[in-house]
C-alpha cells in the first residue's frame, strides 16, 4: 500500500491508543501489529516525533521483571489534536464510502 497513506494511518492508530491509556513501546507496537501489517521499527521514529511535537510525553516505570519501561502519556495538547484527527478521519471515511456506493 501507499507508504504516505500508511504513515498517516499509523500515526492516528498510535494517537488513538494513547488517548485511551498510557502504553510502553512494545505494547503499542504489539497492539497495532495485531490489526495492521507494519514494519515495527518504524513506530519508534514516529513516537520520537510525537514526543518532540509535544503530543505525548514519556516517563520511566519499573516493571515486575527486567529493566524499567518507557511509558508514553498523551498531553492535553495531544488529546485535542487526536480528537480533531479522528473527526477528520470519520468525515473522510464517510465521504469515501458515499462515493463508493454512488459509483455502483
Amino acid at each position, binding site marked *: 500500500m501507499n*507508504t*504516505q497513506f500508511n504513515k498517516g494511518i499509523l*500515526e492516528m492508530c498510535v494517537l488513538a491508543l494513547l488517548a485511551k491509556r498510557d502504553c*510502553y*513501546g*512494545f505494547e503499542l*507496537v504489539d497492539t497495532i*501489529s495485531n490489526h495492521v501489517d507494519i*514494519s*515495527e*521499527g*518504524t513506530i*519508534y*521514529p514516529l*513516537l*520520537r*516525533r510525537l514526543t*518532540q*511535537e509535544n*503530543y505525548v510525553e514519556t516517563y520511566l516505570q519499573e516493571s515486575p*521483571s*527486567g*529493566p524499567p*519501561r*518507557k511509558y508514553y502519556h498523551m498531553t492535553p495538547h495531544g488529546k485535542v*489534536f487526536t480528537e480533531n*484527527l479522528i473527526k477528520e478521519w470519520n468525515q473522510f471515511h464517510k465521504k469515501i464510502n458515499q462515493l463508493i456506493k454512488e459509483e455502483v
Partner: protein
Amino acid sequence: MRKQDFLKELEAKLNCLLAEERKEILRDIEEYFDEGHRRNQSDEEIIKKLGSAKAISETIIAEAKVKRISHATTFSQKIFALLSAFFAILLLTPFNLIFVLIPLLIITSIIVSGWPVVLAMIVSLPVAVILGMIFAINVGFHLFTLLAILFFVIAWISAVITITIGFTCLTLAYFKGVAKLFLWNINFIKNRARGG
C-alpha cells in the same frame, strides 16, 4: 544477526545525530528486545519484526533533517537543509531509489551531454550549406551532383530540426517531471514540519 549486532549497526548508521539523541533511540530499541525476550522471542524473530536497521535510521535521519529546516536562520542554510532533507526523503524508500533516482540520473546525464551535440549540429547547418556550395563549384554544375548535394543539405537540415524538437520536448518533460518530484517531496517535508 544478534541483538548486539543490530544495535551496533543502528548506532553506526545514526552517527550524524547528537550523541544524546542516538543513545535515547538505542535505549528504546533495546527495551523492545528485552520485552521480546520476556515473551520468549528470539533475537532473530524480533529483528525480523523490527525491519532493517537501515530503514529505521533513514526514517529518523530524514525526520531530523526536516526539523533542521525550521531551525536554519540564513537563506543559504535553509536551502542547504531543504536539499539535504529532500535527498534523505528520496532515499527513504527503495522505490524512490530504483524507480526515481536512477532514471533521474540517467536522463539528467543524457540531457546534459546531449545539448552540446544538438547545438553543434545547429551550428553545423550553415557549414553544411557552404560545404555543399564549395563542392558544387569544384565539381561543376552537373544536374545530378547538384541534386545530390541539395538532397544532402535538405536531409541534414531536417535531421537537425527533428533532433532539436525531440530534445526540446524531452527537456521540457524532464523539467516538468523534476518539478513534480520536487513538489511531492516538498509537500511531504511541509506536512512533517507542520507537525502532522
